[in-house]
């Protein structure tokens, strides 16, 4: 490995270096210059530095968007699609950072925003690799940052409890993943996904292969909150500070779905087995189909009973993980990425509204949204757009994401073998309309409670929310605008 190779590596990783530099810049500025400023000032300052740094990284990504590279045995694999996904991750992180300006949950804002940036760096590495070691290390970087972010509200016991549960569960999941990776390495002698793909098909019937698949899928199932690895999600969504919950719900999901999809389709194509109706055979298709079924059913049923808005969002996230898994089953990366990215944008938007409402009214329940139409027209419209997108109502992004994922799953196999899964997904969507309409009912139908004044977020947050809502509408009405970047 000559020095020239490392220099090329440096150039290709310029966006990631910029992000890491931003981490240091935020910490430095916060420690050195802003010790005596108010928390609100410091969070705005930290968010600004992050925005500038990430804008620079985004610029580098756009400048080099046509790059393709495959270095160091798959440790760094770049393609235009991965660059665009990184752009989306940067955007989500910027919005999350600005959400920190809504309300004061910690004095250590510099560290919190720096953690957001660190997690983003981890996600960027996660989507640019086809090497198991890199996947593991990047995954852990993301996870550890998120655990700490969840615990950041030191005044709230729920925050600490949520973080502990998230961490313990996540640690187990990481161990499962590592154990699964060790078997993949053992069976194929390589940690490079294409090499694994070439050699694993010799072991197609081996029980050890199935064990490896189940362990790996279990580990990633935790990250995307699929049943039965979802137990951390409701508590984490409820206890974490709003920006942390927003980032868990958005950025980490995008990266995790991307990597899971890549792992299964690039790394394990020969051992898919089948989950088709009356043609069941062991393999990851079957495992993922089971996960998807359980997630859709459980997520929607549990969401029906919720009165807390955040827990409802958590269970809806579980259900959406199920829908997105259909895209993985269908083997369509564009469908998966479209779904994940639009879902992430919607999630970050909803948590933005939640952050503003909780900050101004202190109420976390769905009933706390009552009469929002009078108290903030912008928030009402934005929330309606996000919620209807989650429900899958056209012409919003959520509809097309579901359509694309369901069509991909329907196309797989001969003669509509996965019809049962698509039918289940459609039925689950219908059930979900009920609880989403309950949320909108509070906003638009319920009478305005006495003595409640106007609710308005900071102007940056309001602009960002409006932009996000517009993005959801535009990518839903004209999906091609987004899809052509993801092919």
């Amino acid at each position, binding site marked *: 490995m000559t020095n020239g190779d490392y220099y090329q590596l440096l150039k290709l990783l310029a966006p990631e270096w910029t992000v890491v530099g931003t981490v240091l810049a935020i910490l430095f500025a916060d420690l050195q210059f802003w010790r005596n400023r108010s928390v609100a000032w410091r969070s705005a300052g930290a968010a600004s530095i992050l925005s500038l740094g990430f804008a620079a990284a985004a610029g580098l990504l756009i400048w080099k968007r046509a790059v393709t590279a495959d270095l160091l045995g798959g440790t760094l694999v770049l393609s235009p699609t991965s660059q665009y996904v990184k752009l989306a991750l940067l955007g989500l992180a910027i919005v999350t950072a600005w959400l920190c300006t809504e309300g004061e949950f910690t004095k250590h804002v510099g560290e919190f925003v720096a953690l957001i940036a660190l997690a983003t760096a981890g996600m960027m590495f996660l989507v640019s690799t086809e090497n198991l*070691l890199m996947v593991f290390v990047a995954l852990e970087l993301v996870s550890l940052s998120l655990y700490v972010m969840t615990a950041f509200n030191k005044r709230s016991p729920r925050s600490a409890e949520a973080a*502990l549960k998230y961490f313990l569960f996540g*640690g*187990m999941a990481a161990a499962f993943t590592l*154990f699964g990776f060790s078997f993949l390495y053992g069976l194929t002698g390589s940690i490079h996904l294409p090499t694994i793909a070439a050699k694993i098909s010799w072991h197609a019937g081996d029980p050890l292969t199935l064990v490896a698949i189940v362990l790996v899928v279990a580990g990633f199932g935790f990250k995307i909150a699929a049943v039965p690895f979802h137990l951390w999600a409701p508590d984490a969504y409820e206890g974490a500070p709003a920006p942390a919950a927003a980032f868990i719900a958005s950025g980490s999901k995008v990266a995790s779905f991307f990597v899971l999809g890549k792992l299964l389709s690039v790394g394990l194509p020969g051992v898919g087995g089948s989950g088709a109706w009356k043609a069941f055979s062991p393999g990851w298709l079957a495992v993922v189909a089971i996960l998807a079924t359980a997630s859709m059913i459980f997520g929607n049923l549990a969401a029906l009973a919720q009165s807390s808005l955040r827990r409802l969002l958590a269970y809806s996230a579980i259900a959406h993980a199920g829908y997105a898994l259909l895209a993985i089953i269908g083997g369509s990366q564009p469908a998966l990425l479209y779904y994940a990215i639009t879902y992430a944008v919607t999630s970050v938007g909803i948590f933005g509204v939640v952050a503003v409402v909780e900050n101004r009214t202190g109420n976390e329940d769905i009933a706390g949204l009552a009469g929002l139409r009078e108290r903030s027209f912008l928030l009402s419209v934005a929330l309606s757009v996000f919620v209807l997108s989650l429900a899958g109502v056209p012409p919003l992004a959520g509809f097309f994401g579901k359509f694309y994922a369901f069509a991909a799953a329907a196309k797989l196999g001969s003669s509509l073998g996965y019809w049962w899964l698509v039918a289940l997904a459609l039925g689950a969507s219908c059930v979900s309309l009920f609880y989403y309409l309950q949320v909108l009912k509070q906003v638009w139908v319920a009478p305005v409670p006495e003595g409640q004044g106007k609710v308005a977020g900071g102007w940056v947050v309001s602009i960002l929310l409006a932009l996000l809502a517009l993005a959801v509408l535009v990518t839903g009405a004209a999906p091609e605008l987004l899809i052509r970047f993801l092919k």
Partner: protein
Amino acid sequence: MTPLHGYLFVSALLFAVGLAGALTRRNAILVLVGVELMLNAANLNFLAFWRYGPNPEALTGVMFVLFAIAVAAAEAAVGLALVIAIYRHYRSSNVDEAATMKG
């Protein structure tokens, strides 16, 4: 029973013990110990497959283990910090005590 099988058996046992500990223990630190056991079982797997696999010259297995150990250490650090956070609120590191969120 080849040496490889022996090592795999031990690592499977370690994993099982770790999992059992993680699932049944009430003290958060002991759950963390269980997680660490599971991670080390995976490390043992990597080393066994590396040593008795077809390509022991490529240091892939060892490299993975080194990184995994470092990551596990970082995870333990974060985990113990979280346990301290819980302790500050609940005066106990018992996972059953810190269970206010339901449903």
